[in-house]
């Protein structure tokens, strides 16, 4: 049934959008593809899962997971941006990739390499609306994702921190000259993107009831694709791209086969990039115009 598949795609898209936005912030502001974001996504899922397994409530479990991912993101900032900002632009990228491998393997050591069931207190609760079966945790996750994305948009376009970030995106030298504490502001951005990725991981566990050490890599590829498709650095572009990627993915699984998913998704992405190299809503539009 087409409508059901489209709804499933939409709900999955919310999580992709969070990851896409986490990538988009660092690309838009520092022009840097932060490869550690999949690790933070995974940590969000694994840490909240471990806390739930020990019998803690969902609120505390997610809060601890966010504290871990936010903290980890600030540590990564020290090693990718702060110490290496004067180095060749590929160095932070490699360093962030190092963090991805490090965190994934730490999780394999402590939690094993098998996928783990996510002991969500909501389980697979669902409601039926017309002929559609709607998973309540997925609906809630989608609503939370959307709220976070809108919040991010408001922060970037309407607040002092957002002005500082957009100013750094245009010129960190001028920002510094005007009195912006560039180091602290960039840390703030890393914290936000770490929290977005971590929340995405926890919501993924709550929605799909399974987490694993490599859950970040697959979702991150979709998130990067969503970001590129929508237009790098563009907040609404990340959301739109994520919806399209997730929709195509879900439709391919049900109408073609699950083996064909990656061929179709990335094939489509390649074609769209050929036609619209700046993405659907324009490259770096977050920095250049208000939507």
């Amino acid at each position, binding site marked *: 049934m087409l409508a059901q598949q489209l709804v499933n795609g939409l709900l999955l898209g919310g999580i992709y959008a969070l990851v896409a936005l986490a990538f988009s912030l660092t690309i838009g502001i520092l022009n840097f593809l932060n490869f550690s974001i999949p690790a933070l996504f995974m940590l969000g899922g694994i840490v909240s899962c471990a806390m739930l397994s020990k019998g803690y409530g969902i609120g505390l479990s997610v809060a601890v997971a966010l504290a871990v991912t936010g903290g980890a993101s600030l540590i990564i900032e020290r090693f990718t941006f702060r110490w290496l900002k004067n180095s060749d632009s590929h160095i932070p990228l490699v360093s962030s990739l190092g963090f991805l491998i490090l965190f994934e393997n730490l999780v394999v050591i402590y939690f094993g390499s098998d996928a783990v069931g996510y002991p969500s207190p909501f389980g697979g609760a669902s409601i039926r609306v017309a002929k559609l079966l709607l998973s309540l945790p997925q609906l809630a996750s989608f609503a939370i994702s959307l709220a976070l994305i809108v919040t991010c948009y408001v922060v970037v376009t309407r607040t002092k921190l957002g002005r500082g970030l957009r100013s750094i995106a245009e010129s960190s030298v001028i920002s510094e000259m*005007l*009195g912006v504490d560039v180091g602290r502001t960039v840390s703030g951005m890393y914290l936000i993107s770490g929290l977005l990725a971590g929340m995405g991981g926890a919501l993924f566990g709550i929605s799909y009831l399974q987490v694993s050490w490599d859950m970040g890599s697959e979702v991150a590829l979709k998130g990067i694709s969503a970001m590129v498709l929508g237009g790098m650095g563009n907040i609404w572009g990340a959301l739109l791209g994520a919806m399209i990627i997730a929709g195509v993915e879900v439709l391919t699984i049900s109408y073609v086969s699950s083996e064909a998913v990656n061929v179709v998704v990335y094939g489509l992405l390649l074609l769209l990039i050929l036609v619209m190299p700046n993405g659907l809503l324009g490259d770096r539009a977050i920095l250049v115009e208000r939507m």
Partner: protein
Amino acid sequence: MLLEVRNLSVSYGKVAAVNDVSLHVEEGSVATVLGANGAGKTSLLNAIMGVTRAQGTLRFAGQTISGWSSARRVSAGMALVPEGRRILLSLTIEENLLMGAYQRRDREIASDLGRMYELFPNLARRRNDPGSVLSGGEQQMLAIGRALMARPRLLLMDEPSLGLSPLFVREVFNLIHSLNSSGLAILLVEQNTRMALQAAQWGYVLKLGRLALEADTEELMKSDDLARAYLGDNTTAKHRLHA
């Protein structure tokens, strides 16, 4: 004394852009730094603002500020109108003005914004347009307004008349006069020697990174030392290259 620069040197790799320069700006006065292209004027201002690393001692309003971050220098009461205006093209005009007040935490930012719009009505009309829509002269006004939003005690201006139409040049210098009459101290770097000497009380001439001359501006205007120092006494330049 508001600003005191002692033995300031700036080098890029092995090239010395500013070499052992000492100068000062009195409270409420206008001082000007003159010199040809490449004399080190911009490096000097950037070093005072803390954007460029430098050796030497900087004192501002009774405190030693060498080693302070730019942000801290802005809070202490310095603001720079940079060379080439450097407004933020992706931010709106109003956001550019607000960026000038980034270090401020008081509640008078909104009323200062209103004052800037009174001072620059052209900006008020287009406050929500991106900075990129402005002409060169208007961008200069925005860059000055942005610096004033920091409520500085000392305004550093790097070639504010460069590339402007004669009308805007006059406007910039009128503004310098009126800002100074209201008590603001200004350190003005200029290539428009005549206008700068009229605006300032004290003048410095930089040549190849070194202080070549300093005097009361009225004296500078009368003497031909200025022309000699400014236009380049080739023998000294050669000596320096060989040294």
